[in-house]
């Protein structure tokens, strides 16, 4: 975690007082940009910065041209870069190799010679923000004219590592106000949010991580109640870890005077899967809705296309989390779940209607089913498919 490194402590001590003490908005903007650049360069390294600078420059220039074709060309370049850096190994060694083993191995070997061992830091995040920006500009929104403003949008350090995925319209609207004047109340509220985030992350999530790592080795020797407790801890861990990180990001941003979009809204209180996705990683789910699901046709071409679009969008959402089969399946698990939620009332006939009425009458039932569905999904998220399956079987058979 980048925010609890000593480097970041020193960065904070130098950067934040400087930001608050500078009164001239333009100078404050430059100070912020320098801070973001230092942060990004430190954690990504030169090899990680160069591709982002290239993609950023391309995105800025194409958007500024106002030419739709150029904008979509830049979108393609961003996506190709993402696929190239992050998914080449997965596509060649797992997908292509399953169809044509020799070709897969050859492609993988070639890719290994020219690709870095790990993709540039936060490449997926950059791609999502650049794609959002380019598509919105192509749809007629005004582009960011000033390079400094665009650079700040691109490498704004609080949201760089784990989001939330910003929308440039909101960010550019908030920025002049923040650079002009930082409210004392914002700094205080931001500091409280940062403290809350660190508590969630370090006191709770990190301890759960240690305990889970220890017990997962002997998961199959656990008693049934212990195994269910493990599942509950797994679900709690990811929420506390991710939302804790987001709290820290949002808090630091608020201390700079910029309010970033919320990413979580009590997701485990959801009474349905659709409700869950309106509360979990909100900036990602809304991005997927706006830039994958709706462009694919959304719900405009009949029920079959609607469900197909939903499944495709969630499959991509799964893959966004990492280039591995179990992430893809996790996405399909949720996509499939949403299709079932949307169809069971009619597809199951009178039984479905009764079930639906039951869920409507007793929201607690919907909450429980959703929670279980999501929790079992986390097995797929964290473990290889075979292991996740075996764990699920153990849990469901109470052995």
């Amino acid at each position: 975690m980048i925010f609890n490194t000593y480097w970041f402590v020193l960065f904070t001590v130098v950067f934040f007082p400087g930001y608050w003490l500078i009164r001239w908005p333009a100078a404050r903007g430059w100070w912020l940009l320098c801070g973001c650049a230092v942060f990004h360069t430190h954690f990504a390294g030169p090899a990680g910065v160069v591709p982002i600078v290239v993609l950023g420059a391309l995105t800025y220039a194409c958007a500024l041209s106002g030419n739709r074709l150029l904008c979509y060309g830049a979108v393609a370049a961003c996506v190709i870069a993402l696929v190239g850096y992050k998914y080449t190994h997965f596509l060649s060694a797992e997908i292509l190799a399953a169809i044509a083993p020799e070709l897969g191995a050859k492609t993988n070997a070639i890719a290994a010679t020219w690709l870095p061992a790990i993709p540039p830091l936060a490449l997926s995040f950059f791609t999502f923000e650049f794609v959002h920006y380019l598509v919105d500009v192509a749809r007629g929104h005004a582009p960011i004219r000033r390079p400094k403003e665009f650079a700040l949008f691109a490498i704004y350090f609080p949201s760089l590592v784990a989001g939330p995925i910003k929308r440039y319209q909101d960010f550019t609207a908030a920025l002049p106000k923040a650079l002009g004047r930082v409210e004392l109340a914002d700094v205080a509220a931001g500091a409280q949010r940062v403290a809350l985030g660190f508590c969630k992350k370090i006191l709770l999530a990190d301890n759960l991580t240690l305990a889970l790592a220890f017990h997962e080795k002997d998961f199959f020797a656990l008693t049934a109640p212990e195994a269910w407790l493990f599942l509950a801890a797994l679900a709690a861990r990811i929420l506390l870890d991710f939302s804790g990180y987001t709290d820290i990001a949002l808090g630091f941003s608020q201390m700079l005077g910029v309010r970033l979009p919320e990413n979580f809204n009590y997701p485990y209180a959801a009474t349905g899967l659709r409700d869950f996705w309106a509360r979990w990683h909100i900036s990602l789910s809304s991005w997927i809705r706006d830039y994958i699901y709706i462009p694919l046709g959304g719900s405009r071409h009949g029920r079959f296309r609607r469900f197909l679009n939903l499944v495709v969008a969630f499959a991509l959402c799964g893959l966004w989390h990492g280039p591995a089969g179990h992430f893809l399946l996790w996405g399909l698990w949720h996509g499939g779940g949403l299709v079932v939620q949307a169809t069971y009332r009619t597809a199951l006939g009178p039984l479905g209607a009764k079930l639906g009425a039951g869920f409507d009458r007793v929201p607690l039932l919907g909450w429980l089913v959703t929670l279980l569905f999501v929790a079992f999904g986390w097995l797929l998220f964290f473990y290889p498919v075979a292991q996740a399956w075996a764990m699920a079987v153990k849990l469901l058979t109470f052995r």
Partner: protein
Amino acid sequence: MTFNQLKALVLLLAIPVGFALAVRLGREAEGYAKPQRFVRLHYGISPESLYYLPFSMLENVALARWAPGKTIVIVAGNSILNGYGQAERDVWTLRLQEELGDRYVVVNLAFRGALPYEAGALVAESLLRRNYPVVLVSNTSPGTVGRVAGNAYGYLYYDALYKGRLFNHPARDANIAEWEATATPAVRAEQDELRRAARLDANLRFQALWHHVGYRHLFTTWNPHTRPQFWQARASAVDNLPVAPPLAERFRTEVASELTITQGFSVNLAEPDGSGSWRVLGPPAEIVSDLIEDMIPPKMRRHMVMLLTQNAPFYRTRLTPTELARDNLVFSAYEQQWRKHGIAAHIVGLDFTDEDYYDRSHLAAAGGRKLARLTADYVRQISPP
């Protein structure tokens, strides 16, 4: 000013005030002599259970029983000298204290898996630098020296270094810099972070405060050694290191792999000389020699006893005659290697029996008593009462 603005101002002022108070408390905590009734470092007070004792805490332990006129015997080294395999009441350093008598204060600062000049050894260096009468007892196997930085207990080196506790030894700095230059970016980043932490702590003393709270009041990090009540103060953690079972139950598991390890003690350090005998390989011996020279300040060397700890007879008797000859040659050669640098080195364990060992390398209580008698002689030789 509105109420909300006032509230915000109070909160923001409370942050630096609270921070300053924490620094003040950290400086106070640094002076406390803890742990009490200290025998050795066990799971409850060890980095193995994520309790990263600060250097000041180790120094306090070392000085807790010291009085003018007494010599402090710091026992560093690894799990063998830590007494792994002996019950707390039978730990060999308690016997060493009895053997040496009141003119000496024996403090067991051996960490499991530590290198011969690491962790507890740096406490001895710090005390000697402050002109305390000190003897350092440590142990190793032939061919092992290692660096003070870059290992599990490397944080203690930076902690001591940036608090100005160590001798100025440019060869050590240069060696570490050279090693870092060839390390992977991830290792370099890790070392940078350790240095930043130690530099900050040298001024702010957060480690002392945090570990004092963890020791006396509340710990916040889960770990398998102190579960399920991981939050309990580490002062209440009991020494539950394993104790040697009856002889009939020892040497029963992993015999083949342990025998391979025993063979490995000398396999890469000597080669056949063509006449049916062995000769010690030059390059590994030179590396050891360079590391001794670079890591251990010259002033420290004549205050050191280095024990080259032999393996249990159960395994040594299973070596072929040629392997045994190689083993003997290598141990003798490396004993001389340490002596060449002015360090009193001794091979121990050659005349021990299986009864004396808990497993291949660790000693049972009986072996601990023998080790205590031998070590007491070695200590008296370099620091007469």
